[in-house]
Structures are given as C-alpha cells and as structure tokens.
C-alpha cells in the first residue's frame, strides 16, 4: 500500500508551527516511514506533483497570494488542517484588523524613527507585490477546513498524535497537557 501524501504551507503565520512540527525530534525519522511529503517549505518541491491526502496550513490569509495558495491546497488535498492560532483565527497578524491598511503602511514606511529620509514618501506598491487584503482572514472563511489544531504554536506532541491518528485511522484523544491555546 502506498503511503499517505502530506503537504504543508505557511501563509500569514510566523513559521513557529512548522518549527513545532520539527520539535517532534527523532520521531521525524518515523514520520518519513509513515508518510510521503509532497509540497513543503522544508523541502525543494514547489508545486503539487500529485493529489495529497493531508494538507497542513499554518497562518491565515493577509494577501491575495495567501488566498491563491490556500485554494490550491483545497483543490489538491483530501483533508485540510488549520494548524495553530493564526490559521484558526488570524492570530497576531489579525491585530491589524480594525485598523485601515493605509495607517499600517504609513506607520511602517513614513513615520518610524529610521525612515525620516524617505523624502519622496515611497510606500511599496510594485506590481510584483501581492495585494494586501482589507483584513486578515481565518482560513475557514475562505475554504472548508476539516480539522483545527490549537496552540501558538500547537505542541509537537499534539501535531504528532493528530497525524498518527489520521494516518492510522484511529480516534484522536489528545492528552490534556498537549492541548493548549497559547
């Protein structure tokens, strides 16, 4: 039987959830036996090369590119997991929700103590830059999400238990001390 295929992405997150996945430590060698990785920032595979069984998404959507990647994942993965606070609720980046994007840009590029010589008042706007959304969106506001793993970041043991449960078809009974919301 072929191994289940897993893909991961980090959208508007901090990569802490991916780092937490690495914190399963030596179990990563077992993980390689258990699943096949398709698309992930930790390897060099940059587009989907086949349909995946499990897609793991860190971070929510703060720009048009995040939305595009998320939709690609939905199209190519049977099961999508929102991993961590930002994916589930927008997290820290969503602290800008309720503040006009213009104010955020002006603070960063015109007002700070080290940008005083930006005499032409340049704010990045090149066509190569994806469009910033009006606010940060949780992933389930954009596409259907099947599972949610909380934490900032979710503990490595929780990610491990959830993956093993999914792959082996057994119920997930997370230990109390692994299920945290910070």
């Amino acid at each position: 039987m072929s191994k289940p295929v897993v893909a991961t992405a980090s959208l508007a997150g901090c990569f802490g959830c991916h780092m937490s996945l690495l914190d399963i430590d030596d179990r990563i060698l077992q993980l390689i036996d258990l699943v096949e990785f398709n698309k992930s920032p930790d390897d060099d595979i940059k587009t989907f090369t086949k349909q995946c069984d499990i897609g793991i998404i860190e971070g929510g959507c703060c720009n048009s590119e995040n939305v595009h990647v998320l939709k690609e994942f939905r199209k190519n993965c049977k099961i999508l997991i929102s991993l961590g606070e930002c994916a589930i609720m927008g997290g820290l980046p969503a602290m800008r929700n309720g503040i006009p994007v213009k104010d955020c840009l002006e603070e960063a590029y015109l007002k700070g103590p080290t940008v005083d010589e930006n005499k032409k008042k340049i704010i990045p706007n090149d066509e190569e830059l994806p469009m910033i959304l009006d606010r940060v969106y949780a992933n389930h506001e954009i596409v259907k999400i099947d599972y949610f793993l909380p934490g900032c970041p979710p503990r490595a043991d929780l990610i491990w238990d959830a993956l093993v449960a999914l792959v082996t078809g057994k119920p997930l009974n997370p230990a109390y001390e692994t299920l945290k919301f910070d």
Partner: protein
Amino acid sequence: MGRKITIEPVTRVEGHGKVTIQLDDAGNVTQSRLHIVEFRGFEKFVQGRPYWEAPVLVQRLCGICPVSHHLAAAKALDVIVGAGTGDGLTPVGEKMRRLMHYAQMFQSHALHFFHLASPDLLFGFDGDPATRNVIGVALLHKELAVQGVMMRKFGQELILATAGKKIHGTGAIPGGINKNLSIAERDKFLKGPDPLNADKMVEWAQGALDFFKGFHAKNKDYIDNFAVFPSAHLSLVRKDGAMDLYHGVIRCVDADGKKIINDVDYQNYYKIIGEEVKNWSYMKFPYIRKLGMDKGWYTVGPLARLNTCDFIPTPLAQKEFEIYKAYTKGKPNHMSMHMHYARLIELLHSAEVIRDLLNDKDLQKDNLVTKGKKKKEGVGLVEAPRGTLFHHYRINDLDQIEMGNLIVSTTNNNIPMNNAVNYVAKANFTGQKEITEGMMNKVEMAIRAYDPCLSCATHALGQMPLEVSLVDSDGNLLDQKRK
C-alpha cells in the same frame, strides 16, 4: 525585446520571497531584485498595547528565532523600567537570559546547517529536488541527520527550561526573568544521558565544523568563489572587542577592515542608521547615515560577526577562529559560502558558552528582577542567529506603547542579498534562453547563505514554490517554467 525572469517562491528559506531578473535584447542582465511580498503592519498595531506585552507579542513575528525578539524587546523594556542598558540586571537575570539566548543560537545554527544547508553540500545544487532536502539527508546520511535532530532538541529543551515554552516562551520580563534554573533542571543538561548533555553537544559541534572543513578542503572552488563581493560588516561586540551575542556596542568595519562605526552605544542607533524605502519590496533597506543610502549598506550575521570581533572568549572556538582568520590573512572575509563556516564556529562557541553557564551557581539565585526609575523610551539590541536585531519602544503616561520600531536581522541584509542575487544572475543568466534547475537553485542558494528569515523581516512568515517566467519588454509571456 527584453525579457523578465521571475523565480518564486524561494523554498528552504524561512519566509516569502520572489526574484525577478530583467534581461535586455542582447540577453544581458539589466536588473535583478529580491522582492519581499509579505507585510504585517506591526509598527501600527503594537500601539496602545501595555508595554509589558511586547516581549511575548512581538516574538510572534517569527517562530524561527522567537527568543531573539523576546530578548531584544525585554532589553528595550529594561531601559524603560530603569534596569539599565544591558548591565543593570541581577546576575541570575542576566545569566538566565544568556543561557536562553545561546541555547537558541545553538539550535538555530544546528537547524540551519543540518536541515537547510547540508542538502546543498551533500547533493550539490544540481541535485534531484526530490532528495535535496532534510528527508534525503535522513535517508542517505542517517547518522548526520540524527545528530542534527538531537542538537536541535538539546537547544529547544534548554529554551523550554529557561523560557517556559520551546516556541514563544515567557521567561524574560522587563527588568529580569521570571524563573531561575533548579539543580534538577541543570543536571538534566550537564549530566543527561548520552547524547543529550553539554559535553556531547560541544563534541558534535566540533564534529559538524570538521565535516564542513573537510568538505571545504575538497571543494575550494565551489566554497571560495560563489558570490564573493566586498561589503561592510556590522555587529555588536563586547566592550573589549570579544564576540558577544547577547550584549555589546555597535561596531562596523568596511571592506578592508577599517572601523567605520567605532564601538558606539546603541541607544542612539537611529542617529547612526536609517532605512530607505523602495516601491518593489516590503522590506526596507538600511544604511549608515553618514555614508548615505547608496554607499552606507552593510552585512550582518555570522560572517559579519567574525569580521568585526577581535577574539572569541571560549577556547575551542577561539582556536578555530584563528584558523579561519588566517585563511584570509586577517582581512575581512567576503565569501558568501563562508557564512556556513562562520556559523559553525559560532555553533561551537555557543555549545561552550552553554556548558560554562550551566556550571555557574548564579543560575540558582532568587533575586530575579531589577527595578529603577521609569523612562519613556528604550532600545534593545541582540545578535540574533541571522544578525543584529533592533527593537525600539516609546511609551506614554498610561504605560501604553506609543511607538515601536524594529530593524530585524534579515532587513539589515537586504542589500547584500540583492547583490548576491545580482552576482549570480550576471554569472548564470546572461545570454541564456533556457532556465535550468541548477540555475534557479543557484539564485536560491545565494539567498539561502544569508539564512534569511524573510517572514520576520517583513514582520511576517512563510514559504515559497518556484516559478520562472520569461516576459518581453511589452509584457507578453514568452515562456514559463515551474518545478
């Protein structure tokens, strides 16, 4: 008809980036740019928050080196709560933070070398992308992969013991720390079962460094000649010129090694350093004000730190430092791939510092916090794994943050990274009609040598697939390749 080549996203660097290379009619590279495409707006939304939230809040810009942000913010707030500028903490406060910081340096450098850089060294940049990753390393060089995993684990466990969590901890608070290290916790790291103890970590760090030196001896052409260009280098150094990753004064040397910022107190960093804004990247472009926007750029990170410091204050790393310096006859090192060499010397240094600190009885003391006369404004700098990190806060009468400014390590390296991309583009893309896997990966490798945490540089985080587009000067798509 000119052509434009786009490479996105750059994988195996932590963050979002995209490269465009513009060719003219003759096929010459006229322009190459590394775009940072994420924007968070931290500077605005931190306003109005109580100042003591900053160390736990701001670190969530980056889950790769959250400890650096945690500590830089705490150091800025030390100034605000009247606990001095890096020297006013109690011995246990200062040393617990140092332990946390060097643990992070250790795990981050181990992660970078084993997970992110070793695939290129082991499989070459023309290697099959399906195996050119940490999983490939695990399958083909299992012993090396296990070492990498266990070194990271040791560092992460030490961060857990000092900060309370492996990622996004809470250990540092304004004026000090919230816990000391118990004897039981200490012994876990000093006398832990093989391999998880401090002695083994020093041994393995030396082993990783020897592995690289062996590789270098056999691949001098590749390591010494890839993306070499002169640059100024900036970092913190201890007041006596020693390498110090937690605290110091700002020193910058030019391409020949002459000091252009001579051991200056960092509370006034904004008078020394400015940031240029360009419309094609969310990442700003820092410069030394007195040299201007065009000439004032500099590099930070492991290579820079070994170029600025006079010596390393631990014996094994100092011995390696002397060998390393002799290779360039004491002159500043400008070879991009020597960033890996420098990083591994720092890995060894960090392991030595951790071992020394664990043996220090100050860690078990109880006076955790210093308080003094409150101030309105504070600046905190640390040498993060990827280079100098600046945090700056001003508060109002209600203890709310009124202004927050960051210059993160990777932002400092914005111009050097663009220069590296430009160098590789000119060397590999000139006159080319086809874009090969190897060419694309060379561009990424040049960026990856800087170990950019692009996410936190845009006060963001993320990943990237690779897409190359050829566009003529009228904007018509001529060809497109994906991998």
